[in-house]
């Protein structure tokens, strides 16, 4: 087990290193960040002074060297646009994004598994077919369009829910959380649902396919022959087996929800991380882009780790670290 963890850590560091190289090169290829930063009334001398203050007058390899040595000391740089450490910016927005992503994932699981199971058990019934038809919509409708329609219907026309923004927050151990207030929940409902729709469709279809496959397998027939109740057959045997692919997919999708919920965050003016990344790319704020992707890579590594651990718990045949081949 420790060996397994170490190996994962080494992988993560390698990925972060390669990624930082790519981002440095990428931002450099787009253009000189100075061009986006200098105010209109700045003179050439002002521009030169600003470039020197940020080290942007140095050749790229030296800028990268400075970044590496600072990063090894735990400093991922100061944002060009905000004049605040990049990591602070990201961590500050993490709670908003995390609560949105968790809410969306919970919605996808809570609605997706029962719907998928039902559709899998009664594939030819009216409701089963309706669920599948509905899931196609969830897949194919673009997020931004659904988000706008939500706002149009529930905020502008009906006036039931606030159109955008994050609601009132409560500090829990210094972390501002909005899901603990009524106002916060109201603000979260639409963006979370918007974000959940695609995942919901995905989970529904996965569970349905898994259930249909499992139902025809020997162990289910055997369980039925043994005279187990239908609830026990489905709940204990079928569900547990189909959960393995579902857990993988939910894990990966959760990572992408956290890191790249840009569209939803933009439409609902949700002060989350995805928006930060896009805004930073738009103003060529390289330190934030690099730090953001470092955090994201770490996040994905952690999620993958959690997924592997969950496998081991769900499926006794899986052993970590290759101890029992």
């Amino acid at each position, binding site marked *: 087990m420790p060996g397994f963890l170490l190996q994962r850590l080494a992988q993560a560091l390698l990925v972060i290193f390669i990624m930082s190289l790519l981002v440095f090169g990428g931002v450099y290829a787009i253009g000189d960040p100075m061009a986006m930063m200098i105010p209109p*009334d700045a003179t050439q001398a002002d521009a030169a002074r600003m470039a020197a203050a940020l080290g942007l007058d140095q050749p790229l390899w030296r800028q990268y060297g400075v970044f590496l040595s600072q990063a090894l000391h735990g400093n991922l740089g100061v944002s060009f*646009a905000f*004049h*605040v450490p990049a990591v602070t*910016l990201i961590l500050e*927005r993490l709670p908003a994004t995390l609560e949105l992503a968790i809410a969306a994932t919970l919605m996808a699981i809570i609605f997706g598994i029962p719907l998928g199971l039902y559709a899998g058990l009664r594939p030819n019934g009216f409701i089963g077919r309706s669920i599948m038809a509905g899931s196609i919509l969830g897949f194919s409708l673009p997020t931004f369009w659904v988000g706008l329609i939500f706002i149009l219907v529930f*905020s502008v026309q009906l006036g039931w829910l606030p159109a955008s923004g994050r609601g009132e927050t409560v500090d829990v151990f210094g972390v501002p959380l909005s899901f603990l207030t009524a106002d916060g929940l109201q603000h979260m409902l639409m963006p979370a649902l918007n974000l959940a729709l695609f995942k919901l469709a995905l989970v529904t279809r996965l569970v349905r396919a898994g259930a249909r496959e499992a139902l025809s397998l020997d162990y289910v027939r055997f369980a039925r022959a043994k005279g187990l109740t239908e609830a026990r057959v489905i709940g204990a045997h079928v569900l547990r087996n189909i959960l393995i692919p579902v857990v993988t997919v939910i894990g990966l999708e959760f990572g992408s929800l956290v890191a790249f919920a840009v569209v939803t965050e*933009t439409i609902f003016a949700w002060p989350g991380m995805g928006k930060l990344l896009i805004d930073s790319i738009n103003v060529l704020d390289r330190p934030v882009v690099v730090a953001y992707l470092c955090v994201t890579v770490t996040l994905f590594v952690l999620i993958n780790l959690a997924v592997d651990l969950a496998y081991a718990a769900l499926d006794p045949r899986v052993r970590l670290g290759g101890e029992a081949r």
Partner: protein
Amino acid sequence: MMKFNIRLWICVATLLANAAMAGDLRIGMSADITSMDPHAVNITPNNNIGWHVFDALVHVDADARIAPGLAQSWRAVDDTTWEFKLRRNVKFHDGSPFTADDVLFSMDRAEKLPNGQYASFVQRLTDRRAVDPYTVRVKTATPYAMVPYDLNSIFIVSKKAAANASPEDFNNGKAMIGTGPFRFTRFARGDRVELAKNPTYWGGAPAWDKVIFRIIPNDPARIAALLSGDIDAIEAIPTPDLARIRADKRFRLAQKVSWRTIFFHMDQWRDVSPFVTDRSGKPLPKNPLKDVNVRLAISKAINRQAIVERLMENAAIPASNLVSPPVFGHVAAIKPEANDPEAAKQLLARAGYPDGFALTLHAPNNRYVNDDQIAQSVAQMLTRVGISTKVETMPINVYLPKARNGDFSFSMLGWGSFSGDLALRALLATPNADKGYGAWNWSRYANPAMDKLLDQGFATVDEKKREGIAREAAAIALKDQAVIPIHHQIAVWAMKANINYVARTDEYTFAHHMK
């Protein structure tokens, strides 16, 4: 019945919202606010908040003309010395009195803050001293008329609260103590800024107890937030939504000609310009854009009225100048070039291009209102007179570095300036790093006569005389067709029908001017 119900719901919701938040004003902002530190990042959204919490010595009125602020009056003692008489009995939000010390401290801080973007406004002031607690004198090395203008950009912070303060101390409110109409309450980055009324503001207490600036850069989201009653007012209304809001009785629009001018720079320095060829794509022996007849032909080929009416939904006026009509130094005598394709063709023929030539036009696609569509229509208009024009648009973060690098031949830029001579200094003066001239002169237009007038104007302390000189300089550049002005934008705000706003040329959204 259903419709009635919806209306009822909206009424109830509005009533509830109003009952719960009497005296609150919620404003939707179109761009991200990055820092509270008034001497750190010089961008409009940050300055917009700065103007609520702080004051400067010199203010700007709704027509972008300078007006007294924390300085009650100022005068040039001699050509290189300026004296500012400070307003008495002004108190900071923490109750401490405002004096000359705070002014000197703020100038110092603006100059020395690491990586601060306001240093250029005080660097020319070589000697700064307090004559008495309510008089400040500054000296410049050479005669410099723009001192009051430059000091419009220096927000006055409290020496007591901001000594050794970092930008973070402003963001968390510790140093965020000013003399302005609102006190700072909270800054949630990427989300909102909350302010509370300063009941003892020297300019009169504002009408609102609490003001919340919500950051909603996405256009549909901002409009939806207004339509749903989430917020009370928004800035920067996208042109396609104007008609709809105008027709809705629940809302009111406030608008004014903005100082922002959309125009095209043209390569006037290279003999062979990278994106100008003959019609078959072969390089031309010389650069046609260097010929004033060709530039005039281009200007005549453009139908500004059509762009203003069809693309901008009348949220713009045709431009002839670099600065819009209310702004200092606008030359009213020069009218927008009339659209005359025939004359354009003749001019091209006379210049030696009877068959025209080919051009690639570059423009951003996410910076100015309808920028890519404007680029497309200008290209079609040029093609109609024989200049076969292709369009390449790109995001501003790709566009700007390339444009500054001189990669383009014909490129769009939008500019706002509170005086004509400042615009000329940045956009058309012969580039000269020592003088700070021509930092944005992508055309590399160079005219010693105009440069000389600018030198003279910036050394002329008398405002009337300076405006005359600024107009003369502008007339020279405009007669040379140094750039092709397209239009001046009209800035539009939308708000609930019971709110009034005195719309501003400088596009700032001021809660204390909403009633």
